[in-house]
């Protein structure tokens, strides 16, 4: 039984400036020169990062980006093969919230990307004591499904994902 916060004094970083994509101006009613291909819209790491950067940490009212748990460089996307690989860094060596964070990531990516994408979530090498066990747990479909059936865990995950709708920092 753990009492108290896992990490009582997290280091909080500045939020990086959100790059807005250079969207095309609306072409209507003029025809778009390339109706069937738009190279700028290919799925890339920034898309994935934009969908996960605002997930709240389970313990603190900061986002995973602000606590440097996630960064754009830690995400790899291969659109042709349909794979997303995310590596995150828990803030302390013995963080037992790592599994919750991984679960939140998985739920968010399941919601935001089509089902044929294979998502691999790992902790960054050397950042956690029981790294192998956590990696195995996070990528095991049955254990993830079982965890999501637990209503309390589900609620916790919902809070982490949707509490960003309550606040705007």
């Amino acid at each position: 039984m753990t009492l108290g916060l896992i990490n009582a004094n997290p280091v909080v970083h500045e939020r990086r400036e959100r790059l807005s994509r250079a969207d095309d101006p609306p072409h209507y009613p003029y025809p778009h020169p390339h109706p069937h291909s738009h190279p700028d819209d290919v799925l890339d790491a920034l898309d994935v990062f934009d969908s996960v950067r605002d997930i709240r940490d389970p313990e603190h009212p900061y986002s995973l980006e602000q606590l440097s748990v996630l960064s754009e460089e830690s995400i790899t996307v291969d659109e042709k093969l349909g794979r997303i690989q995310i590596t995150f860094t828990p803030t302390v060596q013995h963080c037992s919230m790592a599994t919750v964070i991984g679960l939140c990531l998985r739920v968010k990516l399941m919601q935001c990307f089509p089902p044929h994408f294979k998502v691999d979530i790992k902790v960054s090498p050397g950042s956690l004591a029981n790294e192998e066990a956590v990696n195995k747990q996070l990528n095991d479909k049955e254990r993830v499904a079982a965890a999501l059936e637990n209503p309390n865990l589900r609620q916790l995950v919902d809070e982490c994902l949707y509490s960003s709708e309550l606040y705007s920092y």
Partner: protein
Amino acid sequence: MDRSTLLWKSTLEGLIQIGSVAENSIDRRRSLVYTALVVENLLSAFINSTLPLDLSLEALYGIGMVGKHQMEQVLQVVEEIIVVKLLKVCLEGEFVQADTLISLLQFYSGRIISWLSDAGDVSEVAMQFALHIWNQMENKNILKNIHVMGILDALMMTMKHLVSVSTINHQSVILQKSHEIILKSVSCPTEWFATEWFPTEWFATAFQNPELLMSSPSSSVEDLNLISLFASVITAVSAQTPLPPSNPNSSSNFVSNLFLFFFLRGHMPAAQALASTINKNPTDSKAIESCLSILSEDKTENKQFFKKDIITGFALIGKGLVMRGDDRSKEIIQFLLKLVISSQHGLDAALSAADGFHIIMGDSDGCLNKKFHAVIKPLYKQRLYSTLVPVLLKSMKEANSKEVVCRAFGHVISDAPLTAVIGEAHKILLAVAHSIITLSTDIQNKDVVYSLLLVLSGILMDSTGKESIIENLHIVIGVLTQLVSYPHLMLVRETAIQCITSMSTLPHSKIYPVKPQVLKAVTRALDDKRRAVRQEAVRCRQAWSRGNMHVRRYKLLGRSLKKVWTEMVYGSWAHLFIGFIRTPRVFPGKFV
């Protein structure tokens, strides 16, 4: 925006602020110093082309907005540069400068003249420049090349703006000058049109035999360019300005006869000018009367007549009449409806007629609008809408070519005022859905499909409209889910998903049966090639999955704690969850 552009914009903003302070201060010397230092330097930089064109135009406009005096200085310099470039392009053949000339013309008429006319009276200046342009048109070499690369279109729009901001007296002066040049330079016999005994029978025969019309008398490229420019003047004059010739002995139908002649040859600017004249001063032109009577009697069997240009021209004339509230518009409307419903003269003619409805009901920047002094009877669109819709609804079931009727219907519905459409939502909703489905097969209809979808979303936003949607929910959802994968236009897919998202707020008992269908369609859209569509699909999926449930935030019930203790089978998940419960929440005061 990169750093240097940001810096440039901020500096310009600073200069504009300084200028407005200097202008508004009591001490006139400040304004003089500002003019000498800033305005004149910028103008000389512009003349010497040291800055790229778009930046220098933006800077000039910003500095000009400081005060009327500054804008007039900018105006003078821009006028001089326009004339220089015009001569370079048309006389010396430097066609690479054509784009610059077009940008300058658009900047001049669209921004400077508009700003000055809002700020005060610009009529004298506008008239002088218009006359200056007409003087250049006396040079045959300029006339020959002016239609190259879109210069004539830009020049026509500039002329329309200049005429529209002038007073009635100044407009008469411009008209007089242009009339003189037309009489002098146009090669076909213009005295033909001016005389009272103009052969209306000739017109009636020519109407039925376009070959006769095209063969004699012939007109050169210079003629057509001049007629286009004259047409732009006529399009923009006020209704009160007297049309040439001012000689009381000659016929006052010169202008309408001239443009009728060129319109029947397929010249679009002439058609616009003719429509504008009919709208503002419908004199009893016998030529026009005879054309309209031929239309209504349906004596025209000649296939050549039903070309796109002619039908479009008649639609413009019809628009001029409808806006005025004239009863003769009925003949043209009947003509167009017959073409659409029976399509006996070919699919192309029917499609042109369907697009004619778009011209009549829609708004255009080029002619027949408030800016160019059109005579507009209030609520003309609503009246036409209530006349046309029952006919089109009935013929959707009976017509030969359903696609054409749907296209006409789509144009009428999307161009009508939204309040009128929403008021009758229960009558037209099924027809709108049917039209969207029929039209979505062909890529040519993508604009109409998008407009109809916007109407559907407008009905959805309205409370009375929502009720009719709820009554026909399955059909509407069917249409929207089909449009989610519409391949031809991204905006259609995006808007369809947005509509579906907003429908998630409808009563749960109604939307529950269609939920699987919606989720299936939206999940497919997660894979769309465009990012905007993917993002909308994510939002839509979330809205429909979570449904009407409110996420209970921070509801940590005491009994759930016991439940967790008994669920030790989950091992490490429960282990840390216990730690989570025991810790005081750091989020500010959200205990429920």
